[in-house]
Structures are given as C-alpha cells and as structure tokens.
C-alpha cells in the first residue's frame, strides 16, 4: 500500500540558502508522524512545500502514490492536505464558524448570502464527530488557545483534509491541554486521518508520534519508530553530537534582597487583570525561574517590574527603593537589565546597525552621551566589544540588526544588557529561537552572573531551561504563582499541575520552602502550600521580610 504522503527527494533553495536538501519522507495512513529538528532545520519549509505555499526546487510530492503539484495552498486543500500553523491563522474578531468556513462559505440566494445556518450546523456536526467542545458563535478573541487550536483543526477537517500538518502544536498549550491534544490525535487517526506534526521537543515526539523523522540543516537524518528510540539517541540525531541536557548549577549563598514585589496587580492592554496580588522576592546571586504557559501574566509581570507598564496597585521595590512612579528610564539608570521576550519588536531596532543598537537604553548615559551629544566612537567601540565577547556573527558593527539571524540578535541583546553591569537581570525567553550552541553559551553567561552575585529573574516557557537554571522555580497561572518549588526535586508532572492552576500536596512545596529558607527563614513555610497559591506566595513574602531581618540580626 502506498504511504498517504510521500515526499520524494525534495530540495528547496532560497537565494543564498538551501532550506531542504533532497529530503525523503513517507508517512503511513492513519499514523502520527513527528518531524523533529532544531529551529532552522528546514521542517517548516518542508511542510510549506507539502502545503503548496512553496514550490519545491526539485523533487515530487505524492499523495497515495499519485504525484501532485500544488501551485497554492488551495490546490493542497483540494487534495486533502490541511495545515495548522504555529501562529493560528484565525481572524480574531470573527466567530468560530466564520473562521471555519472562511474561503469555503456555503452560500444561498445565488451566492449573495453566506448560509450561516448551514455553516454552523457543519461545525457542530464536525465537532461532535471528533468530540470537540466548541461554541460555533464564540468570537475567536474570546476563547482559549486550546480551543483556537481545535478551531484550526475543524477548519482543516471542514475542507476535507485527510492529512493534517501541525506546526509546533504544543508550543502554547498547558500540559493538560497537550494531553487533550493527544486525545484528539487518537480520534483523528482512528477515523483514518494522517497527522504530521513539527516539533523541536524530544519528549513530545516520543510520546505522541508513531514515527519520527529528524531533520538537521535541511537534510533528513533518519526516520525511526518512536518505540525503538531513546531520548538521547534522538537528541544526538538532532544536534549531531552528544548534548548535555541540563546545565549544572552549584548551590550558592543568596545575597542581599534586590527585588521585592508586594501585592502587585497589573492589567493588560484591554484592562483585564493579568497579574493579581502577586508577591515574591529575589536576592543577589539567585535565579528565580518563572514557568507557565505563555499568556498567564508573565509578560505583564515583567513589564511592571521593568517599567514598561504601570502597575494597577502594589509595589515593586528594587534594592530597597520603591519603583512606584519610576519610569523605565529611572529603572535603567538604577541598573536593571532586561532581555525582552520579543527581540525584534523591543530588544533591537531592526533597521539600525549594531553601533546604534548597542546604546539602546544607554543613549543618555556616559560614555555614549555627553551633555546630550552622542559619542559615536564610544558606541562603536562598545558594540565591537559586545560582538567580540558574545560571539555575534557576522562580526560587523555596521550590519543592520535585521540582517542577523535570530540567535545572533539575541546574543547581541544579551551582551548589551549584561555589559551594563546590572544588579538585576530580567530575562524572558532568553533562548527562544536560538540554536543549541548559543543556548549553552547564554546559559553559561547567566550562571556566571549569578556567581557574581547578581539577581536574575528568568521567565521561560522551556521547562528544562527554567528547571535547570533556577534556584527557585515559580509557576504562574492566570496571574498568580500557583507555587514556588524547588526545581531540583519537583517533577514535570507536578509542574504541569501547577501550570494548569492546581495546587500540590505538602511534600514538594515543603521542598521549595526549605530552599527558600536559605534566605527567608522558615516560619511560614509548612502552612503555605496546601491551601493554595495565593496564600503560599503571600505568606512567603511576609516570611521573607521577617526572615531577612532575622538573618541580619
């Protein structure tokens, strides 16, 4: 029997880049196939070829053994190929059913009217068949990310997709939602659908897929059955060498209190409370990790600390000084470094060269500015020094930021922020989209700063990263810390529960509290955990204040 999808010798070249080099891929009908690889390995490009967004430079696409040539996604859709992109292709202000039928609207009145009733029925019918729970009249902007993903799947199914391509389907989901997604996979494959998903997470590929194909630098490294391969083997296929999975941290005495957050409330752009009544503290020489599914208030928390957003209430104290009413500028002046989550929107001015980007944030400070006048020579020296120390490639201070790859952009930002000699580093997703080599380098630098006694707030959706680097790990859910745990002892399942808003039993929380005790005193810890997140963090900070004095005395 022919495979449902057979990509035969696909090569895709862009000007100056070979994204896919003679890639073969065969996917059996009714199976789940993972396409694994690092960022930039060519996974998305390959799938875009299958989906008709790109035409291959060489090679053939076969469906059920038939050679096909897609000039556009329309052709691919007609042939039964559906794609669910990592960034959902949904129109936010429109309803679920409008999105599902977009481009294939059932019409009445000779085409003058969209038959909404028919469309809605079709949506209801489809969601019942696959066991989805989706309100067809809900507006996309109002529903959860998991639901949005299901709308995307419905969209593909509505178009008669037999083959579903999913790009990083779990990136934005909670562990529980991930489980639900795997359930959806089962439903779909049972009914004969074929699923290909793109991932860079080993664990996900191992647990969800029947077969795994690994891409590296645009080349197919091999296809293996998930049952026959270990994590380490896969990792080696991906990276091409053995990888140390977790950076080593050594225990370290915490220093002075650098950051105290008390009863902080922050609203998002729409005026909805994104961070509620949050309290914690951070000391020199300590890394506090914040884990959680994206969109649970991490961004707003970070913005409130770094001065990009005004808090609705509560206090942020930095080195003993209240930051209420202090601008972003004030905070930069006081030695806060900030690695923003979106480097291309915030961290760098894409059209500026690195000389100009090197002074972003320091443009009013010596040695770059003297009485309002900019000293471009000093800026150039600075940029060149960052480029050299942080191995930014190409090593050209006059290259425009947008001409750099994501990893090199990030290295430049990190370098610029670290070279400020900050007391506090707020790092959000510092290694997102960064290749493994650079990731290791950036992790090392974070640990060096920790060793120098700096305080570091590390926000990341990569669990292994926060777990591996942090001294304490806070899990955030809907604007609150559902728990602050010891990353050394907590399990991934426990973190998953916390990320989903559940609380944990006493044991693991106790572990975290003991770790806390290094600087905080222990008085409140045992009581803190069991009755919920609010109490845990609230008490923690109370304890911290008292405990801090205790240490001094």
């Amino acid at each position, binding site marked *: 029997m022919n495979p449902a999808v057979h990509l035969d010798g696909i090569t895709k070249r862009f000007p100056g880049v070979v994204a896919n080099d003679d890639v073969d891929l065969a996917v059996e009908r009714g199976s789940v196939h993972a396409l694994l690889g690092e960022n930039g390995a060519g996974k998305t490009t390959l799938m875009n070829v299958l989906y008709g*967004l790109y035409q291959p430079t060489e090679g053939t696409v076969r469906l059920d053994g038939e050679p096909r040539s897609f000039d556009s996604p329309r052709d691919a*859709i007609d042939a039964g190929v559906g794609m669910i992109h990592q960034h959902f292709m949904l*129109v*936010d202000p429109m*309803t679920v059913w*409008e999105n599902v039928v*977009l*481009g294939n609207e059932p019409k009445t009145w000779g085409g003058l009217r969209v038959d909404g009733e028919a469309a809605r029925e079709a949506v209801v019918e489809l969601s019942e068949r696959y066991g989805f729970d989706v309100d067809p009249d809900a507006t996309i902007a109002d529903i959860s990310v998991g639901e949005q993903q299901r709308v995307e799947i419905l969209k593909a199914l509505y178009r008669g997709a037999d083959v579903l391509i999913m790009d990083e389907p779990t990136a934005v989901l909670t562990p529980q939602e991930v489980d639900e997604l795997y359930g959806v996979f089962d439903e779909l494959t049972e009914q004969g659908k074929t699923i290909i998903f793109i991932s860079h997470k080993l664990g996900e590929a191992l647990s969800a897929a029947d077969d795994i194909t690994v891409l590296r630098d645009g080349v197919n490294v091999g296809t293996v059955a998930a049952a026959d391969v270990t994590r380490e083997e896969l990792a080696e296929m991906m990276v091409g060498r053995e990888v140390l999975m977790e950076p080593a941290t050594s225990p370290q005495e915490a220093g002075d209190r650098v950051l105290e957050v008390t009863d902080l409330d922050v609203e998002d752009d729409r005026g909805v409370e994104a961070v509620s009544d949050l309290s914690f503290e951070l000391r020199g020489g300590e890394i506090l990790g914040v884990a959680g599914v994206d969109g649970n208030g991490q961004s707003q928390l970070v913005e409130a600390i770094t001065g990009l957003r005004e808090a609705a209430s509560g206090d942020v104290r930095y080195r003993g000084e209240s930051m209420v009413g202090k601008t972003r500028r004030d905070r930069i002046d006081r030695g806060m470094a900030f690695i923003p989550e979106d480097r291309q929107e915030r961290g760098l001015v894409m059209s500026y060269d690195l000389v100009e980007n090197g002074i972003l944030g320091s443009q009013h400070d010596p040695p770059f500015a003297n009485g309002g006048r900019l000293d471009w020579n000093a800026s150039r020296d600075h940029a060149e020094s960052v480029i050299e120390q942080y191995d930014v490639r190409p090593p050209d201070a006059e290259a425009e930021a947008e001409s750099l790859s994501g990893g090199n952009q990030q290295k430049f930002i990190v370098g610029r922020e670290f070279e400020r000699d900050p007391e506090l580093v707020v790092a959000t997703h510092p290694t997102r989209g960064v290749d493994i080599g650079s990731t290791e380098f950036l992790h090392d630098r974070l640990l060096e700063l920790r060793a120098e006694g700096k305080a570091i707030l590390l926000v990341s959706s990569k669990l292994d990263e926060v777990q591996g680097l942090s001294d304490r790990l806070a899990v955030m859910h809907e604007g609150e810390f559902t728990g602050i745990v010891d990353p050394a002892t907590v399990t991934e399942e426990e973190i998953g529960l916390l990320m989903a808003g559940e609380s944990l039993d006493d044991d693991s929380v106790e572990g975290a509290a003991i770790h806390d005790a290094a600087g905080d005193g222990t008085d409140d810890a045992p009581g803190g955990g069991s009755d919920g997140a609010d109490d845990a963090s609230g008490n923690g900070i109370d304890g911290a204040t008292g405990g801090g004095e205790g240490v001094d005395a």
Partner: protein
Amino acid sequence: MRNPLSPASLLEGASESSYVRSLVVGTVGVLAVLGVLGLAFPESLAGDLAGIVFSTSTATSTARLAAPIVLAGLGGIFAEKSGVINIGLEGLLIISAFASVYAASIVGVGNAVLGVPALALAFLAGIAASTFLAAVFAVVCIEFKADQIIAGLAVWLIALGLAPFMSTVFFGGVNTPNLGARVGWQYSATMVVLATLGSWWLLNRTAFGKHLRAAGENPKALDTVGVSVSKVRYAGVLLSGVLSGVGGSALALSIGQFVGAGETMVQGKGFIAIVAYLFGNYNPVGTLGAGALFAGLDAVQIRLQQLGYAVPDTLVQTIPYVVVIVVLALVGRTQIPEAAGEHYETEE
C-alpha cells in the same frame, strides 16, 4: 455574544462598541436637551437653534450635503477593511466630479447614447474615472508596495492638478460651463441609502465581506485557505473608487458644473468622509449617521449665520472641524483593522 444570523440588526457591530454607543447617546442627548430648551425658551438662542435643527429645510439640506461624504466614506470602508488605507478619497471625488460633467457636456444634456440619457452616462463616466484612479492607487499599493498614506496623498494631489488642468484644456478655464441641467437631490439621497444598505449587506452577509474583513485583520489566514489576498484588496480599493465616483458625480451633477478653482468644489469632503467612517466605526450605517452628523452641522451652521448672531461667519464655519477634534479626543481611536497599512506578500 453576537449572533450574525439574528434578524438583521443594522447596528450590529456598533452595539458592541462602547464608543459608538456613547456617540449615539451623546447625540440623542444633545438633541433632546436642545428640543426641551427650545420649547421652553422659544425666543432664545436655544429656541432658534431648535427651530433650525428640527426643520425639514435643514433635513433636506443635510441629505444633500451628506451624499458625497457618505458615499466616499462607504468606499473608504471597503478599502480600509481590506487592509488598504485610502486617504485619497478627496482625489477620487475631484476626478469623478470633473469627469461626470465632462461626459455630460460631450453627449449634450438631453441627448442619449444607446438609449442611456446623458446624465446617467455622466454618472458612469464619473465612476469610471474615479475607479481608474483607484485602480492606479491599488496597483501602486498592492503590486509595488507603496506606502499607502503617501500614495493616497499623491492621488489627491494628482486629481487636484489634473481636473483643473483638463478643464482648462477642454473649456479654457478651471471651471467648466454649466450644463444647464442637474440631478435632483432625491436621486442622490436614494443612491446613498441604497449604497449604505448594499454596503452593509456586502460587508456582513456575503462571503466577499468575510474575505474583506479577513484580508484586513489577518491576511495570512485568508491566504492559507486559498483566497487571494491581493484580489480581495484590489476589489476593496476598486469599490472605494466606484462609490467615491458615485459621490463625486452626484456632487457635480447636483450643480451641473465643475468648479476647479482653489480646493475645487469638493472642498475637503473626501477628508470629512474619512472622519465619517472612522466615526462610524467602519459600519456603513454608522458612516451614514456620521456623514449626516457632519452635513447636519454644516446645514445648521449655514442657517445659524442667517439669524444674524454677531458671531463672525468664518468662525461659525469652523464648528464642524472643532467638533471632529473634540469627539476624536473624547472617544479616542477607533478599531483600525489589524493589518491595515501593511503590505501582504504571499510567501513565494
């Protein structure tokens, strides 16, 4: 939660926006207070004002003045909803105003070509001219990725030069002679109402309307389901040309003459049209309301002058502009489509 299939509430979309609601409430409130004051003190300024505001003369005047504003505003909705900000509506009005008069003068009023009377042909010519200019704008913005605001500005300036230029070439002066015939305002008013309802239907009930919205909000979503974003955007911009063409023709043909001196007879109505659809929050009915509001202010202003209040006339003429600024400051920004102003390029 909104049900798009519920019995057509025309203000759908407006109802969900608090700012449109506050506008409506504000307007009704002001009118009510005025009415009460006017009844209570008929001899005062309030009485005079109420007399003006609630007269049929003002109403018909409003209907006439609103036509080009609303029509161009509706056109602006289609362009901007599709993701192309068309700031050149003024230019489209100018060029169609000239072209319609020119066409009617060629055919000769009273004559007909293939049974189509001259004034109807004039409309068609106006629409054709405006649509052609809109097509140029569309190509420049969509194909050549021009900056939409600047290209729109250029459309205005080109029309502002071209219409008087051609008038001078054809008629020896920037103003054309009068045709001696005109289109009654009832026709324009009917066209405005039909265009408003038609636009509303097109935007909210047809597949094209959904595609238009998607092209402006998330073009990639549209592209990935196999609908060409470019085509939808072309359609949106061309529609803005068609509707502005109707508006410009109606304006000129209501006088039977094109006046090209200074700012031309269009007198900034295209810019007011932009404000109108922003006020109307991209809802055709809201745009009709906003257009009527501005035209109504103008109509009241004209009548207020005649009562002989010792306010300089030129200051009274400033009222509509100040109102726009004040309202804009109070209600802030409207919901501009997410991808408006951006170029979209299909991958590969």
